[in-house]
């Protein structure tokens, strides 16, 4: 028997959605449900192993090839910029990157350099570079919404799901930066060396995902 195919999942909601997806195409994920504190879990009938990790680590593990595949949000992929194959848009974990400011704030007015607070400096830099706009970027670890309220930044670039947090804090979206959803990523060498196994799985996943989008 070959080494099991190792797939890294982003812990939390994406993990649940992915496990549901894997189960719906016939994989036995009992071990993942009963994981306790274990981080590597077998999927016996699929000759697969699930690894649970933080989003950014999923990319690192897949890029280095210690995991063959991974499921991770486009947000983290955009921020990390790894060298890997991004095969399938899984359709779940949907949200967006957006630029937000205090409501009715004249963000694009004037000639001063604007300050942006964000957890995603690379995404922010790329977005404003595309506009040919010079901005100061401040990296914030926690609730980014605070920065414009406290007067540290003119705006924020952050993930927006429903917009409720923004609204409750008197902020509003100025512009969408990018749409986000979960992606199936594959190590560049694994795809070549284990093509059949991976393509098999990818085909099943794609069918399911297309099915679901068609029914929505």
């Amino acid at each position, binding site marked *: 028997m070959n080494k099991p195919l190792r797939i890294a999942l982003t812990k939390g909601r994406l993990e649940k959605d992915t496990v549901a997806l894997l189960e719906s195409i016939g994989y036995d994920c009992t071990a993942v449900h009963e994981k306790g504190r274990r981080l590597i879990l077998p999927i016996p009938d699929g000759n697969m192993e699930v690894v649970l990790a933080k989003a950014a680590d999923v990319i*690192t593990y897949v*890029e*280095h*090839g*210690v995991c063959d595949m991974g499921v991770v949000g486009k947000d983290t992929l955009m921020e990390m*910029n790894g*060298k*890997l*194959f*991004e*095969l*399938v*848009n899984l359709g779940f974990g949907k949200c967006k990157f957006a630029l937000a400011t205090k409501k009715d704030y004249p963000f694009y007015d004037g000639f001063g350099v604007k300050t942006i607070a964000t957890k995603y400096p690379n995404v922010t830099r790329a977005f404003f570079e595309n506009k040919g706009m010079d901005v100061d970027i401040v990296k914030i670890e926690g609730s980014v919404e605070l920065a414009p309220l406290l007067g540290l930044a003119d705006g924020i670039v952050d993930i927006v799901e429903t917009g409720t947090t923004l609204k409750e804090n008197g902020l509003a979206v100025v512009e969408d930066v990018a749409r986000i959803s979960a992606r199936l990523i*594959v*190590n*560049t*060498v*694994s*795809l*070549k*060396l284990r*093509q059949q196994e991976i393509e098999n799985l990818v085909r099943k996943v794609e069918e399911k995902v297309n099915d679901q989008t068609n029914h929505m």
Partner: protein
Amino acid sequence: MRRYDLITPEGTRDFLYEECALKRMVETRTRQIFKSMGYTRVITPGLEFLDVFNLNSRYFPQEELCKLTDNKGRLIVVRPDSTMPIARVVATRMKDAALPLRLYYTQPVWNFAPSLKGKSTEVNQTGIELIGSSARMADVEVISAALSVLSTVGKDVPKPFPVQYSLELGDVRIFRELMHRLSATPSLKEEIRSLIEAKNYPALNDVLDQLGNNPITSSLRRLPTLFGGEEVFDRAAEVFRDERIQKILDSMKELYRTVCSIRKDANVIVDLGLVNKTDYYTGLVIKGYLEGYGEEVISGGRYDMLLSEFGYDVPAVGMAVNVDAVAAVIGRKYTPHPAPADVLIVTEEGCEALAVQKAEELREQGLCVEHALRPEDAEDYARSRNIPKVLLISGTQTKEVDIHE
């Protein structure tokens, strides 16, 4: 002031004992292969003018180059690649040499890697360049060198072990041909290229949707999916209904079959979606993979336009081996131990000259001889270092002692 006198810069490291021995093992083996194929070694300087790497086609991103200035304020880079300096040498000092030229190198290259990603800035490479021929046999020769390197991994150790390897063939001309006929802005074309490289099917489809549905966009959609074994050529023939592309595919298929029959056990794969950004490649591209290593260990291809950028219009093909990667793969299964000396010579004060003469005499016979620096502990030292024999020299007397555990 913070001092950094005890560490090496990120992405670089010291090679000690095992790592050093493994690296040497790979270098020695590849050198043997290259030399036996008629290649001669060249050494290019570690420092080059930035301009060498900053040609019209801009192959190297600024942020990855290690830059310095010379004493006249000109920009210098620490060599990020060996092929371009070799192209420079050939186009200048070797311009009158008879072609083809077969050159090989074993030297590091430096590219700043993104921080804290476990990637090296300094990578030891060894590779060949076959310059002055566009013959099919030249491609086959370089591929066969790659196969020889891949197939000997794990074979130079006391207990040889098998390492699965794959050799991948591609051809950038198919992509170029399609892009040439696509009407889109350069930045959109670059986006399409990067999406094909990342096999990002969903995003590629979105971008191509904007450009409408025509034979070119539908071919581009399929391009990254065209990888695998020989069946890829049949699938490709259905996708590309075009004479020029079909001609490229036919010659690739023939090459594929040739390569497969060189080594029956070799796993040869094809990927028509190999389209790297920093490539100077103009046709064939090759990559070599080893089981359990997350990126390619060999990369190469045909670069027929590169030398003309240095003013010498000749075709060329080559490939480079990532020595550190191959050494790491061997190192997972085998730890080299430095061989102990054969003889330890112990001498009294005043008899040093005699001891050195005796040592040289033994070394002539092919033995490894060490001098004891603390005569009083010589036997303990020999025991601890597994040196089987101690030679005592006093006056004109020599006495042999066999050391047993």
